[in-house]
């Protein structure tokens, strides 16, 4: 069972908003027959003439954490960036196939890309807070979406920081520079900034690789909490992190022609105890390479 805060970004008068953190209960196990939140269907992705991803088919279950693992250069981050059309910003890229968000292709003509990137948020490897105050970092997105009411912005800032497990550490210094926070705090700020615009999916590209072990574990705890309200997809080099934190794992590998392909997808407990494909077995046991 999950509970979401009521949406607050319409700016409509009288919108009710709960300041208390939502009750986090365990999501029900993913139903294999349920429509996935995101579906990649027969995707090929090209940088110019170079095919970087080959015939990818992958479902991301709703309100679950899916980790994408695989050796360096196999296309994990490229794949992640197809999910919010960040690769559109790279010249001469081309995608074949479909990426379906709630059944609708995000690459269809006339799709509002800005709205896609609101619904599918991204947290990057290195924390990248804006050179602004903590408050303004969080309020930036809602303001862009047209929220002007200070009361609503205050509520959104507090709610987002609470959900990112950062509120208690920064509540007395919201107008201090975000750059003064520690690395782990900055990354949680970036997560808060992402969820302030009420996404449905949160993409994370090696979110902890620049953080110390304590900060890493705090982010992992946070991911488990956020799972109840968001679909989370994480790319990670850290296999133990994938094992600790994710519900599902997708294993990718580079083919001889340099294209990344999907090798195996299953529940994390299966990938790490009894994978079907020998390449997965070799990779998770550290015998690859």
């Amino acid at each position, binding site marked *: 069972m999950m509970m979401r805060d009521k949406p607050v970004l319409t700016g409509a008068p009288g919108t009710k908003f709960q300041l208390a953190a939502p009750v986090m209960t365990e999501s029900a196990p993913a139903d294999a027959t349920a429509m996935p939140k995101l579906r990649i269907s027969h995707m090929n992705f090209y940088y110019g003439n170079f095919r970087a991803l080959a015939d990818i088919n992958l479902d991301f279950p709703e309100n679950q954490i899916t980790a994408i693992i695989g050796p360096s250069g196999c296309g994990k981050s490229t794949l992640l960036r197809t999910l919010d059309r960040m690769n559109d910003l790279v010249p001469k890229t081309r995608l074949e196939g479909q990426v379906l968000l709630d059944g609708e292709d995000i690459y269809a003509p006339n799709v509002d890309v800005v709205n896609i990137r609101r619904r599918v948020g991204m947290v990057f490897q290195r924390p990248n807070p804006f050179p602004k105050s903590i408050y303004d970092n969080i309020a930036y997105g809602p303001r862009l979406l047209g929220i002007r009411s200070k009361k609503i912005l205050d509520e959104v800032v507090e709610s987002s920081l609470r959900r990112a497990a950062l509120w208690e550490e920064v509540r007395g210094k919201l107008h201090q520079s975000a750059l003064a926070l520690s690395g782990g705090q900055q990354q949680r700020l970036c997560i808060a900034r992402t969820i302030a615009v009420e996404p449905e999916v949160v993409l994370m590209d090696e979110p902890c690789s620049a953080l110390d072990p304590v900060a890493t574990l705090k982010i992992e705890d946070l991911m488990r909490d956020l799972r109840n309200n968001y679909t989370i997809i994480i790319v990670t080099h850290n296999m*133990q992190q994938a094992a600790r934190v994710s519900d599902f794992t997708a294993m990718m590998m580079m083919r001889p022609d340099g294209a990344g392909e999907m090798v195996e997808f299953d529940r994390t407990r299966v990938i790490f*105890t*009894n994978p079907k494909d020998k390449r997965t077995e070799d990779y*998770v046991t550290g015998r690859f*390479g």
Partner: protein
Amino acid sequence: MPRTMLEHSIGRLQTQLLEFGARVQHVIGQSMDALKTRDRALAEAIIQNDAQLNETRFRLEDECYILLATQQPAAGDLREIVSILLSAIELERIADHAKNLAEITIHMGAEPLLKPLIDLPRMAELAQVMLGRALDAFARGDAQAAEAVAAMDDDIDNLYKQIFRELMSFIVEDPRTVTRAMNLLFAAHNIERIGDCITNITERVVYAKTGRLQELNVGTEVS
């Protein structure tokens, strides 16, 4: 190839488990010999020696925990280490049952046997052979062979049922035989439990090789 250290460590654990298994196999035979020949000194030595077997189990167990904590094994490595861990515990249980047999020998003292020992030594011999084959299947990582070994437990169970019926009829005919009958029944029960422990080891072999968790040789309840 990477993970050389882990591979060597698992290899060492496998060897240690096989050595432990061979010692336990020997103790089963010794405890039945002590019973057959009414050798009190041998029985006492078996009881004393059990502490060393416990120590071996704890050493093996500890090494498994260390590997789990420090090497983050996954997939086949994880299954292998866990199987070694659980098999070591089963071997120590088998040794405890052999020790119980030795205690029965001492408890019986010089009292005459109720009947010649035929089926009991046969049970013990079967258990030794079964354990030897289980260890062999473990060494070769042979899940099929392990499943075949598990089926041998039926023979041990059938012998136990036979002994049970026979001893019950002694008691019914002459209630004064109850103490002597119960001693032999407890002895048979301990060997029957050894068969069950060996079956558990074969289940571990299957798990290590295939990832399949299942009860092998699910038969009728014996006791």
